[in-house]
């Protein structure tokens, strides 16, 4: 019931000096606009769209990811876009530390807090705000512009509703889980 060790082919992953392990088979566009905190794992076939950024002064990060995150295979991370007063622009996507994104999930949120676990096959709508210490269950469809308050478990959808609450110790549980995940990778 503890996380099993998983191995990977050395040549398949690029390991940066801050400890990020990025798969060569992941689809990363606009890598100069993507910031990865240390010790983050990007699995194969994960798409990160750093090229969708706001037009303006060039040095602006469009995807900011924290430490000990894990982006599952086939997941898609896109910055959200909005047409405001006739001006179309992309907004930055900020992800906190210790976030585990499941496989095949599409993330278009405005911000995701720390210690969040997102299940498989989820769809997080545009400009959703997910606060710290949440659990998004497998297959949940979070509607655009929703705010998921801390310590909530969100399931089903659309629109995904809060089904239960997490215990107070969940922050340590998720933190230990993500560190364990990284250590055993």
């Amino acid at each position: 019931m503890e996380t099993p060790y998983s191995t990977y082919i050395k040549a398949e992953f690029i390991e940066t000096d801050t400890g990020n392990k990025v798969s060569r088979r992941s689809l990363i566009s606009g890598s100069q606009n993507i910031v990865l905190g240390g010790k983050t794992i990007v699995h194969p076939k994960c798409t990160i769209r750093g090229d969708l950024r706001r037009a303006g002064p060039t040095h602006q990060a469009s995807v900011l990811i924290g430490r000990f995150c894990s982006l599952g295979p086939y997941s898609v991370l896109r910055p959200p876009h909005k047409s405001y007063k006739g001006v179309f622009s992309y907004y930055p996507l900020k992800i906190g530390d210790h976030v585990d994104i499941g496989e095949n999930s599409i993330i278009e949120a405005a911000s995701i807090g720390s210690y969040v676990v997102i299940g498989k096959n989820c769809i997080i709508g545009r400009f959703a705000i997910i606060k710290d210490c949440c659990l998004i269950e497998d297959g949940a469809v979070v509607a655009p512009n929703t705010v998921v308050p801390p310590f909530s478990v969100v399931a089903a959808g659309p629109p995904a509703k809060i089904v239960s609450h997490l215990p107070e110790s969940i922050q340590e549980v998720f933190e230990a889980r993500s560190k364990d995940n990284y250590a055993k990778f």
Partner: protein
Amino acid sequence: MSSASNTLISVLYHCPCNGATQSPGGLDTGVRVNSEGEEAVVPNASSNSELEAQLKLPLQPNSELLVLRASAIENLYYCDDCSELRCSRCVIEEPAGYHCPNCLFDVPTASVRSEKNCCARNCFQCPVCTHMLSVVETDTETRPFSFACSVCYWDSREIGWEFEKATGISPQIEAIKASDQQAKEYTSLLEYWRTVYRISATSAPTSTLGGHSVGGALKSRFGLSSGLAGNSASTAVIPPYQAAGYMDTDHTRVSQRMNIENVDTVPPLSADLTSIEPQRIRLHMKLARRCRSCHHILIKPESKAQATRFKIQLMAANFLPTITLPNRLSPKTPVLLPEMPLRVGKTVPLVLRFANPLYSEMRVTVAACAPEQDSHVEVVAQQFVLAPFTELWEYDEDEDEDSDGSSSGERSAGRQRGIVDRQGNRVAIQLNLTPKAVIDNLTVPLFVTCTHQDDMDMDTDAPASAPAGGDSSRRTVTNKFWVYISLGPTVQ
């Protein structure tokens, strides 16, 4: 990588409380959980088997109550005054702050009452899909704003709600609703009766009904029995109620409704969605938890809605050893989890890992329940010592794994029999498990006793039972609890 952990395999800790009815400590079945400091006597092997023989399971492993009484260690709390495990059923919950789940705005307690537990700002629910509504700009020239749902595309213009400004929706809604006669009448009625109650409560506190004079017209309209208006001890003269605008003159319908005897049919929910109004979003509470017996605060959250920290957080995982089933000890050693599904009659070694969260050493004794029809468990290592937890272990992990991986198969002379691995504050022990019957979910109950020295030198009012020897500033704390390990189905 998401964990693909087998959800059938779990370790559940049993809380011996009786739930909401009785505070823990008054047990009628099972083993008494001792909360006072005991002498740290280490039982030797022979007395342990006697202990095993005396052990009585609080709950049968297949009992449905197990779901209620036992849970994973993340959900459990620990009261350090009583030195006992607490579950969510034996703690008292109290609100520690209210906030709106949509705008995450902290609502002061006074406003909670006046706003009827709803958010007073622009937070409304879509009547069709209960998603949050957002204010959008529309094309119309007058009143360009309205509510829209981004999931079902419902728009508030369908019920005629259009606003001039994007902010300050509440007064604009009030203006729209002002034309609703019934709602106004209701609020004015409420106000009237509140004043009546207030005046009668202050003036005639001894009378049971708070006698007040009821306007004659009012009395006849509502058909009040004389019992209510019997007390004619009217002290202050309260003017009879004047209808604010709405008067239901259909007396027969009103008296019919008031004299309803049986309700056999319920009218179906109207499918006419155009008349349903968006409701305000209800507030969420932040809960503070207290121990039921000593009222010591176990969980105290910070008052800000967005903060996820806690001022006080006494979780069971910080005081009791965490028991897990490791997959393997290091990348080089073989897999430790037995092959699933388990086969009847085949003895498999089951490895359990105990992790010590405390800063002092802990002695652990594991005893299996008496053999029963489901399985037979032999505990090889019955007692062992867990080293204290140091943060340094987290940094030394890489070195430990290399050194311990090689010797897991051999047992050197200094090692205790039955201990498979020792890493930092964690010990992996081996149990031999023989399933005996084919069942859906094999659950192995284990009785765990852990003892540690608690050096708290601030306790001047130490419990009466002084520990044997040692300084008076240290006390020995013993925790005993049952653990149920579920392992999934067994096959022939």
